[in-house]
């Protein structure tokens, strides 16, 4: 049974912390021998007091550089890790208790790992999940048909998983994780290593799945295209701390101090540096980076000084902004 969540958030995290005890190992034979007797232990905060919540049906991007604490957070949300402190609630359950009623309503997809059995066709693994999740047969058939249709799985289902390409395998993994129609979907790098076409395919599938089943999705990805296509809202963490929580557009506004101006003129001129930082110059197409506040003034000047054929003002690519966010924090 699906709990009536009313207006309660689907995912609710308050001041969540996770500390890891790490044994330090130094290089060298002497240190190795010493470490057998006495190990230096370090306490590392992987997640250091973050709070946010997800509303039912939202798709939210969960961003941060490697080691920021994203996977640790996802593991606490799906009940794999016990928080050191703070509160986690998903669908009003406490994840680490791993109640069956809770586990039946969530799923965790990790792009770098597979749950499908290597030597058998995906369809046989699906059968296993059907038994494990107690999915009624007619229900199972309907969902499988829908997923097969959305992901174009038809020709893949009967081949042993080891014979599938990375992208094909990921599609089959997604279907395996969604057969029980979970209300909450945690996706850790679902498009990692996939080619652009396949990434796009997975993205449109996730949008479709979210709309059709009303599932709440929390997604981590290093591909900003995923985030831009799927998520209105992003949560950014770094060093285990929350940096930003809000609309993607606001993130751009908040953290981009520069605009990119692209001007098309006859040919490259060497005095362009007077207007701003020259990023590139090819065939008379010059890309300048200009502080946001000066955009209007520089544009005006360019138009006045030069025989401009075309002019375009843009926000820098989102990757660049994200880089800047993380760099800022370090400084």
């Amino acid at each position: 049974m699906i709990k009536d969540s009313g207006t309660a958030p689907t995912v609710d995290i308050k001041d969540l912390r996770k500390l890891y005890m790490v044994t330090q190992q130094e290089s060298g034979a002497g240190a190795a021998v010493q470490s057998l007797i006495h190990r230096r232990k370090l306490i590392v905060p992987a997640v250091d007091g973050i709070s946010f919540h997800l509303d039912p049906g939202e798709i939210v991007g969960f961003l941060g550089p490697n080691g920021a604490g994203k996977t640790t957070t996802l593991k606490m949300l799906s009940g794999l890790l016990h928080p050191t402190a703070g509160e986690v609630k998903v669908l009003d359950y406490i994840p680490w208790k791993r109640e069956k009623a809770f586990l039946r309503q969530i799923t965790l997809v990790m792009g770098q790992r597979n749950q499908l059995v290597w030597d058998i066709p995906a369809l046989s693994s699906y059968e296993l999940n059907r038994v494990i999740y107690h999915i009624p047969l007619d229900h199972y058939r309907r969902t499988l048909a829908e997923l097969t249709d959305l992901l174009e799985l038809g020709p893949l289902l009967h081949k042993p998983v080891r014979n599938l390409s990375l992208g094909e395998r990921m599609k089959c993994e997604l279907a395996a994780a969604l057969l029980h129609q979970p209300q909450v979907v945690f996706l850790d790098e679902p498009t990692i290593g996939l080619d652009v076409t396949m990434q796009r395919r997975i993205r449109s599938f996730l949008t479709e799945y979210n709309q059709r089943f009303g599932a709440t999705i929390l997604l981590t990805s290093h591909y900003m295209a995923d985030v831009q296509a799927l998520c209105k809202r992003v949560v950014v963490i770094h060093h285990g701390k929350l940096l930003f929580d809000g609309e993607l557009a606001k993130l751009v506004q908040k953290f981009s101090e520069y605009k990119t101006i692209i001007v098309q003129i006859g040919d490259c001129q060497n005095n362009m540096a007077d207007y701003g930082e020259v990023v590139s110059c090819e065939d008379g197409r010059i890309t300048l980076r200009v502080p946001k506040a000066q955009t209007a003034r520089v544009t005006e000047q360019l138009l006045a000084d030069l025989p401009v054929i075309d002019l375009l003002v843009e926000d820098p690519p989102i990757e660049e902004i994200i880089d800047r966010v993380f760099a800022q924090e370090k400084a």
Partner: protein
Amino acid sequence: MNYLRLTMAFFWVGVISEVAYRINFFFQLFQSLISLGVAIAGISVIFSYTDSLGGWNAQEILALVGVYLLVGGIIGLIIRPGMEQFIASVRDGNLDFTLTKPEDAQLLVSIQRTNLWSLIDIALGMGVLITALVRLGEKVGAGQAGEFVLVLVAGGSIIYSFFLILATLSFWFVRIENILTVFQSLYEAGRWPVSLYPGWLRYGLTFVIPVAFATTVPAEALTGRLNWQTLVAASIVALVLLVVSRLFWRIGLRRYAGASA
């Protein structure tokens, strides 16, 4: 009931995946026949000098070899493959998928993998056992057969719990695949009645590494040697180990989740 359904589902998947590697059937058959041949050769050499070994005659020892193969087959069929995969999954992180499933994780881990070809050992073991009993000309009554099944189940549970405890150590020490191989070698000691071994080893094989309960004791049941004290002891040890291994598993899981950190 649902557990049975799950077990069958996993077994069926095991069948499908193993059929892809048909060649293994012949490897296993070859290996099982060699193992049986060596055992029979050993018995015939020894019994060409004597009529009795620690009170067991040739046919009784053969019956023990049958039990040894049968139990070895059960270990190979369902106990060891699951535990091996579990140890690997702690290391590569795939255990996470098992833990997010709405089913008891110990059950899933235990039945997740089967090695179909071990059925050969089970069939061979039963064959040897029946041959030995027929040659003994002994009538196995319903009572004796019942005792045999009971101590076999107890022995199987003891071995399973022991494997689970060893495998659960992987929550603390990540690289411990070899521990199961060590156990497998010790299991080979079960080919002979434990009463043949010197005292310290006999106790070791009974209480430290409980091989005796899995092989000698069921064979005793069939050859009319089993006393009620052993029967009760086997049942109690089985129950205690099942509970202890379950508790140990839960402590291990808590550690995996970092609950104590």
